[in-house]
């Protein structure tokens, strides 16, 4: 047995050292500030969750009779949701860790038995798949403890029992993966799981949205709410690991140590059983499954080589990169779920506007419609920023190891960046204009607001795409297994912040003049000379900022990428 643990620890060493070394080594100042910035952002997010939880819990407890039920239902839902997330996340992580990681070929060539390799990878997978869920659910439990004035036992028990839930979820996830790899090749399974997961999530989300949950705050349907709340008292299944965790936390909150220990014991013993079954299964099938993964997967489609239609008018380089980008994009199954997500986003976005109860608002509908239309412009551009962050920002990083081709090609870096810009600009412009025009039609806004929104979006989309391409080129990540995630890096954060600043600047510049024009139109009077000057200056500034937002980041990106070596 000591040999088992020794081997597992040795196998975990590279991971531990690659985590520790960058922390211990004398980093450059730039890297230090970058980590500090990311750490501070993460901490602020944690604090934000804590404050919102604290306020919500305090508010719930003030509702007589219902407070307790609501709080415990919320707690139960949180634990159940975390459990589901943990299982989904552990399925994806263990699939990568056990079957797809690049270092696995080296690890499997070592004189170590399959179950030891499995255990080491499983521990890594558990840590990777659960740390974020555990850390970001903790503030809710801390807030719960503070509101209920719970003792130290509650906090300790909660942390430990959440850990047991992570082990259990990881055990379930890896068991599922080991079995599934025998039916579907690991490489393809990841895409299938991601696709199914997203489709399921989106279906549930769209159905939930179409049910109009906002009606629950409508007094006219209050009787339904009472019936609904009555159903909340129903207990969850006692066979679910999340129920044991929930019961343990609930008991420790009320100070029942013995009862809490019982439920924690259930949770921990189940986690241990899961690990035991996993190791047994690993002995039987893990290595065989891994060996199966090493064989090339069969091909579903035949590809016919030709230039893409409508690219005949482009230059050679333009044709080359447009064809390459579009083909590689649609052949990467991980992108499909993202496209589904955008489709759902469009449906929900437009639907939200169609169900706005404008007639019930205390202010005049005409003001509200146009105010909403103006604010909608900002909202739509924020949505666009998120979409651009997912597609335009990683556009350079998707070159990955083949970046040497770009550097060796007889074409300027500047030209490549502009080609990438136009590839993403047109689809994103169409998406934004559909959102803005459709919602304006639903809101029945004035022609002036419609024209203003249309032109503002037309002016700003190129800027947002250029900031994405430019910053993606300045901070490329060619080593990432999934370049799409590069937007969560330091450069991605900068991109988001600069886009937010850009959108806010335009909204602020336009707000005053738009109000003046709108009021003059409503009251059928002409504007003063001062108002005209203000309007012309503001709109000129918007045009200037929008032009700067296109060219400056592209220049910045070109300079940055020229220095990057493949």
């Amino acid at each position: 047995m000591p040999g088992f643990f020794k081997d597992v620890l040795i196998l975990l060493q590279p991971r531990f050292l690659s985590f520790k070394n960058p922390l211990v080594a004398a980093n450059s100042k730039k890297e230090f500030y970058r980590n500090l910035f990311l750490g501070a952002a993460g901490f602020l997010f944690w604090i934000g969750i804590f404050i919102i939880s604290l306020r919500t819990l305090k508010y719930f407890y003030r509702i007589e009779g219902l407070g307790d039920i609501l709080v415990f239902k919320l707690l139960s839902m949180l634990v159940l949701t975390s459990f589901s997330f943990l299982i989904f996340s552990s399925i994806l992580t263990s699939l990568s860790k056990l079957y797809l990681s690049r270092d696995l070929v080296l690890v499997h060539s070592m004189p170590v038995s399959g179950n030891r390799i499995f255990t080491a990878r499983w521990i890594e997978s558990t840590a990777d798949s659960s740390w974020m869920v555990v850390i970001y659910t903790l503030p809710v439990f801390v807030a719960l403890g503070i509101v209920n004035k719970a003792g130290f036992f509650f906090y300790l028990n909660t942390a430990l029992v959440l850990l047991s839930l992570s082990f259990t979820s990881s055990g379930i996830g890896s068991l599922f993966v080991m079995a599934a790899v025998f039916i579907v090749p690991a490489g393809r399974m990841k895409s299938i799981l991601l696709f199914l997961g997203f489709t399921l999530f989106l279906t549930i989300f769209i159905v939930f949205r179409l049910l109009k949950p906002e009606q629950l705050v409508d007094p006219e349907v209050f009787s339904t709410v009472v019936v609904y709340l009555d159903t909340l008292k129903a207990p969850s299944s006692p066979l679910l690991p999340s129920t044991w965790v929930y019961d343990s936390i609930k008991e420790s909150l009320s100070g029942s140590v013995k009862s809490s220990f019982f439920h924690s014991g259930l949770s921990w013993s189940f986690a241990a059983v899961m690990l035991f079954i996993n190791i047994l299964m690993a002995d039987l099938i893990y290595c065989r499954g891994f060996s199966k993964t090493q064989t090339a997967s069969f091909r579903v489609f035949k590809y016919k080589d030709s230039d893409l239609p409508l690219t005949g008018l482009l230059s050679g380089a333009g044709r080359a990169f447009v064809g390459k980008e579009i083909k590689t994009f649609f052949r990467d199954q991980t992108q499909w779920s993202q496209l589904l997500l955008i489709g759902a986003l469009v449906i929900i976005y437009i639907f939200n506007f169609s169900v706005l109860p404008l007639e019930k608002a205390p202010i005049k509908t005409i003001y509200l419609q146009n105010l909403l239309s103006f604010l909608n412009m900002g909202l739509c551009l924020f949505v666009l920023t998120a979409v651009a962050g997912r597609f335009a920002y990683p556009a350079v990083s998707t070159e990955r190891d083949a970046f040497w081709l770009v550097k060796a090609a007889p074409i300027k870096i500047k030209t490549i960046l502009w080609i990438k810009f136009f590839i993403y600009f047109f689809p994103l412009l169409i998406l934004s204009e559909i959102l803005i025009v459709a919602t304006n039609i639903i809101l029945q806004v004035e022609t002036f607001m419609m024209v203003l929104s249309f032109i503002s979006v037309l002016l700003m989309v190129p800027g947002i795409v250029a900031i994405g391409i430019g910053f993606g080129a300045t901070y490329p990540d060619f080593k990432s297994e999934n370049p799409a995630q590069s937007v969560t890096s330091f450069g991605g954060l900068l991109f988001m912040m600069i886009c937010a600043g850009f959108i806010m600047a335009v909204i602020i510049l336009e707000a005053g003049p738009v109000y003046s024009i709108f009021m003059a139109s409503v009251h059928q009077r002409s504007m003063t000379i001062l108002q005209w000057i203000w309007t012309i200056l503001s709109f000129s500034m918007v045009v200037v900022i929008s032009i700067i937002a296109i060219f400056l980041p592209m220049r910045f990106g070109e300079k940055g990428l020229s220095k990057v070596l493949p």
Partner: protein
Amino acid sequence: MILLENLTKKYGVFTAVSDLSITIPKKEIFGFIGPNGAGKTTTIKMMGGIMDPTSGSINICGINMKDEPEKAKKNIGFIPDRPYLYEKLTGKEFLRFIGNLYGVDKKTFAAKAEEKLNIFSLLSWADELIESYSHGMKQRLIMAAALLHDPEVLIVDEPMVGLDPVAVRMVKDLFKQLAERGMTIFMSTHTLKVAEDVCDRIGIINKGVLIATGTVGDLKKKSLLADADLEDAFIKLTS
């Protein structure tokens, strides 16, 4: 055809390549050998326009790489040591990508692509995604792509890595034929037998400095080892 003048590359205080000057005429196959970390790949990256030198100049077919990099690169076929490609394209689509990028005539593309795929025994794999290719097949595809636009200069970093013996023989013969037809080839390699078999002249680089150039016979003489082969001469000169 290739003119390197006082080429220097520094990474901070470390000098990877120091004051390198080489002239390689048309039709010559020049072998570039040296121990690990001697500066071979750095030199090749600078010649391919992937990396800027700290000082010195690179001339390809009379075109200065610094002044007109795109024009100079158009005359180069570049083959790196690691075959990283766009995995989601098929072999033929990759060749079309390169053809478009290097301005290969659309009318002649299909015939040229087929010819190159045939030479490198990839014709039956032409419509398969590159992700299903073996390491050696990817290396052969890169070679096919590098030759697609009929470059005047071929720059190759470790050409034989990952190739089977038949492919090695084929590539060696192909390089000789290409040189006879007027191509200039600059080839970095660790396989001294390949250098001995193929190259007209060989340059030895050590710690960033070109320590010897000449034919295999010249290098043997310089190493003062009468009956030595290239391996003995290399070890003597670099130790």
